[in-house]
């Protein structure tokens, strides 16, 4: 199984050379690669090397590389990220990564169930120790000794640590796995944590989103499969290819923001004309994600295009970042009447005290 290269495996599955190259092209696009490796490496004079294409580099890698097994763990999740992947409209890429290449363990997609699946996972982890790719979906609860999420009688933390131990690379897909997501929202009853907060000694690639953009997940997996390395990451461990610019920067409603034309409700004239959703609580300006460029469902649309403000789902703590429909400029908390009253009382007492002291001093 693992002795075959990716290309050989695909060939045996009936994929033609033409289809294979096409898939390589999709991968190149998905990984956002447009640069050649340094010219010196190509052993060609510069004027010839300039014409070479990344796609052949990818093709060559896939022709020679053995398949990399992927173990996909799900903890406190909704399987939405997996759903997004399987329903993604870029079948070449997703087929390539999900079906053809190497998912060895995935609770939602595996046909087998129970101890049989678990035994298979253990076998794969032993056989490919240090080589397999670990993808995590969902947050990990630490409360009540991990009793909030168990698989086969073992806690999520236990399973994660075991799998991470022998993994060549770890990818956290979705906001829950990356930053804790919904389970970690205030008051965080299960004491949920993201993967990188638990595996503090390892590099975890975060593909946040709710769900994560399928192309971002597969693109990152593909990068690892092709090159055996992780893509360049930002300070929150997100691949810069997909999380390099804000949704606002690439938003199709951006010109309306610049012109000061805002929709004031979901049903007014501005909303119908496609004006900026900033007043309706859009978090696009502070949200780093590829929604506005890759979009969803094969580039059909994305939330803002469909008339809904960005929730900021690729940022840490987005559930607690003020109301979804509250303008982003508004303060996160509205002062309680009691607090304002207390502040006023303090002012009155100190002011009166100072005035009395001044008067006493004057008389004396």
């Amino acid at each position, binding site marked *: 199984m693992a002795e075959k290269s990716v290309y050989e495996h695909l060939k045996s599955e009936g994929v033609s050379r033409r289809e294979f190259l096409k898939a390589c092209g999709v991968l190149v696009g998905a990984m956002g690669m447009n640069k050649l490796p340094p010219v010196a490496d190509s052993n060609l004079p510069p004027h010839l090397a300039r014409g070479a294409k990344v796609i052949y580099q990818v093709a060559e890698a896939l022709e020679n590389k053995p398949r990399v097994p992927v173990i996909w763990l799900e903890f406190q999740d909704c399987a939405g990220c997996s759903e997004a992947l399987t329903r993604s409209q870029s079948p070449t890429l997703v087929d390539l990564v999900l079906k053809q290449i190497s998912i060895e363990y995935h609770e939602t997609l595996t046909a087998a169930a129970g101890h049989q699946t678990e035994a298979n996972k253990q076998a794969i982890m032993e056989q490919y120790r240090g080589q397999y790719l670990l993808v995590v979906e969902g947050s990990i609860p630490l409360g009540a000794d991990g009793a909030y999420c168990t698989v086969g009688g073992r806690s999520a933390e236990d399973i994660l640590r075991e799998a991470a131990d022998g993994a060549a690379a770890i990818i956290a897909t979705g906001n829950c796995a990356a930053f804790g997501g919904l389970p970690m929202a205030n008051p965080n009853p299960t004491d949920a944590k993201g993967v990188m907060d638990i595996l503090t000694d390892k590099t975890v690639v975060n593909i946040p989103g709710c769900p994560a953009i399928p192309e971002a997940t597969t693109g990152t997996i593909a990068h690892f499969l092709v090159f055996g390395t992780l893509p360049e990451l930002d300070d929150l461990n997100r691949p810069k290819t997909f999380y390099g610019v*804000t949704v*606002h920067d690439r938003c199709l409603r951006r010109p309306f923001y610049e012109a000061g034309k805002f929709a004031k409700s979901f049903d007014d004239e501005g909303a119908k004309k496609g004006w900026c959703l900033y007043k309706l609580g859009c978090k696009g300006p502070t949200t780093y994600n590829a929604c506005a460029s890759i979009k969803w469902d094969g580039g059909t649309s994305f939330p803002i295009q469909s008339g809904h403000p960005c929730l900021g789902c690729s940022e840490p703590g987005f559930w607690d970042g003020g109301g979804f429909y509250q303008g982003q400029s508004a303060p996160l*908390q509205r002062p309680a009447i009691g607090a304002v009253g207390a502040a006023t009382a303090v002012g009155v007492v100190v*002011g009166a005290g100072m005035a009395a002291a001044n008067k006493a001093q004057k008389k004396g």
Partner: protein
Amino acid sequence: MDWNAFLAFTRGPLFYASLLIFIAGMVYRLVQVAMLGWDKDQSVARGSKAGGVVKSFLKGILILPFIPWIKGAFQKRPIMYIAGGLFHLGLFTVIFLGTPHMLVWKSLLGFGWPTLALPFVDWLAVAAIIGMLVLIVYRRTDAVLRLLSGPAEYLNWLFVFLPMISGYIMTHHLFFRYEVAYSLHMLSVDWMLIWIPFSRISHFMFYFFSRTIRGVEWGKRAVTP
């Protein structure tokens, strides 16, 4: 550094604390001033006090600013008058009629109001920023003003200028990433809120009290112009 987390801090707990300090501080100043008391005026009023107040505000806010050339302050220091006027006009437009700021008021007060288009607010913001620059240059170059200015004057200028310039940078996505500019804007605003009650910027409130009291005295003596 996670600037989004820092932004959440400056928009959340820090803003909250600053606002409470601002409220406590302004109440403290007000109570202290109010408790200075008034001397009892035994003379019989010769005119309407309420009328005097109305006229005082009309004169101070609605009439004189638009015919400034009759004022001594304008005749003696036109640059200061115009720059100062533009600064205040721009400031109020941005704070009350700029969309993002209206949303702040809306979240605090529970109701909002229509706002002006961004380009219009933007030009007035530029006018206010230029006004402030002119004022600081004027303060440094005018011999009398320079003698009158201490650290407090320059700090007041700085603590108002920082929110203005960071807000402009943020609106136009200049130089910094948005959340960085936003954090800096909020940080400067939070500090300004704490600073205001204990500085002369508190004139934003006391101006109205002094106008009122002056109006009362004018009205009583029937000397309103």
